[in-house]
């Protein structure tokens, strides 16, 4: 319960101001703190103190409606996540839910999620859908509920205290996978409309603007055999190359992986509902059923911590596991 991470001191005295310096993962979510232009994340333990200009929390893959092993009460664990956020001494400015809000995109499942999030002290929540939120109706219900103020089929950007946030959608109109590797591989996809929008969206920004991109499916190729990647993510990232600090936050794979590539730091988050196997370690992705009840919360991600510093070339092992 208490391998809490002491990375907060790292946010003091940072010279390379435009890079993500350190981050801590904690269970049900992540707190990201902006400090002098540097994104720092800190553990989400009750009463955790953070020094920064502002913070936000990422939550992901709540899968409301899922009711099988290893978690028959995902609403409860989702609520626990919110409770933890509420227990933070310095409240986050907003929350970002990186998709798979629901299991089957039914109205009652969306209702439940909304209900739980109403109990969050931070009233502003930004969303992107996961494939579970849109697959049954091409995103109709999702857009009705969360589409306000968004562009195209639900993507959006906003600025908060000098940071430019971009919410991308890569779970719509998925096409049949035809083989291995890239190219018709059953990956997520952004599509040309969204890419055009993105290019325009960042055009007028100064290159020193910190960028945070969030989307459901990872924007780098983690494991092609399971479709864990986004077909046209390279295109999207090419528009962002000139920026000094790009942080990419994803969900989908229900486990923490990270990678640093140049100025881009990629992170995937844990689920609040159930874990999935590491890439290639099972015949298929999907819920890991045999997690004992007393271990469940630990694999929903409590207290996992690491640092990423910009001068290490690749801070994480990812697709190599495949």
């Amino acid at each position: 319960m208490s391998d809490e991470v002491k990375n907060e001191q790292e946010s003091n005295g940072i010279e390379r101001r435009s890079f993500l310096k350190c981050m801590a993962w904690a269970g049900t979510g992540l707190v990201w703190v902006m400090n002098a232009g540097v994104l720092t994340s800190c553990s989400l333990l009750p009463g955790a103190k953070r020094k920064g200009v502002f913070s936000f929390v990422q939550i992901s893959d709540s899968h409301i409606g899922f009711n099988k092993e290893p978690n028959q009460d995902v609403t409860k664990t989702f609520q626990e996540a919110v409770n933890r956020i509420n227990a933070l001494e310095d409240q986050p400015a907003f929350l970002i839910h990186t998709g798979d809000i629901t299991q089957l995109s039914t109205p009652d499942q969306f209702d439940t999620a909304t209900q739980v999030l109403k109990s969050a002290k931070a009233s502003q929540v930004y969303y992107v859908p996961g494939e579970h939120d849109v697959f049954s109706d091409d995103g109709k219900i999702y857009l009705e509920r969360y589409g306000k103020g968004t562009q195209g089929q639900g993507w959006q950007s906003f600025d908060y205290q000098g940071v430019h946030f971009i919410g991308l959608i890569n779970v719509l109109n998925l096409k049949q996978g035809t083989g291995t590797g890239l190219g018709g591989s059953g990956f997520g996809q952004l599509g040309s409309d969204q890419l055009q929008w993105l290019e325009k969206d960042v055009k007028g920004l100064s290159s020193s603007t910190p960028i945070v991109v969030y989307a459901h499916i990872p924007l780098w190729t983690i494991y092609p055999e399971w479709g864990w990647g986004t077909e046209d993510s390279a295109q999207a990232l090419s528009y962002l190359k000139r920026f000094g600090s790009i942080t990419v936050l994803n969900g989908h794979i229900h486990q923490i992986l990270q990678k640093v590539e140049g100025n881009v730091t990629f992170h995937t988050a844990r689920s609040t509902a159930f874990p999935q196997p590491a890439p290639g370690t099972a015949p298929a992705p999907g819920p890991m059923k045999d997690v004992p009840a007393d271990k469940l919360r630990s694999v929903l991600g409590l207290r996992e911590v690491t640092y990423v510093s910009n001068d290490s070339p690749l801070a994480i092992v990812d697709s190599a596991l495949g």
Partner: protein
Amino acid sequence: MISHLNRKLLLVSLMSVLTLFLGACGQSGPDSSGSSEAQSDTAPNGSANSNADMSKMDMRAKPSPGAAKEMPTSSSPNEIVVENFSFQPGTITVKAGTTVTWVNHDDEPHTVNENNKTFKSGTLDTDAKFSYKFTSPGDYSYFCSLHPRMTGQVIVK
């Protein structure tokens, strides 16, 4: 140095995930495409035949597959089982007029979407079924809209 330490931390956390996982899924290995692959070491050795032929028949024409079929329990011939994120059998050939049924045995929802939108199952949660009657001959390729790497084909004669 810091990054060193952290890499370690990361590794440890990854490993704990792995361990947990190994504990969790002790069954079938990392997917070997199913069907008739499983016949190798129990080969009965052609014994009483003419020596000349032996090398030829060796591996292939094995008469007693024993308990090799641990594939899903598809009771009806026109049923396709969705299991472990795959359609089994992946290709099925039927006569025009046949009704084919898909049943989802995964704990994950799936769908059956024909590529040209000829049919679309909607959500198939665990144990849910979907049937479609194929009236005209042709090749029908389909996939799961949630996991588009899952594909299958129905050939209608």
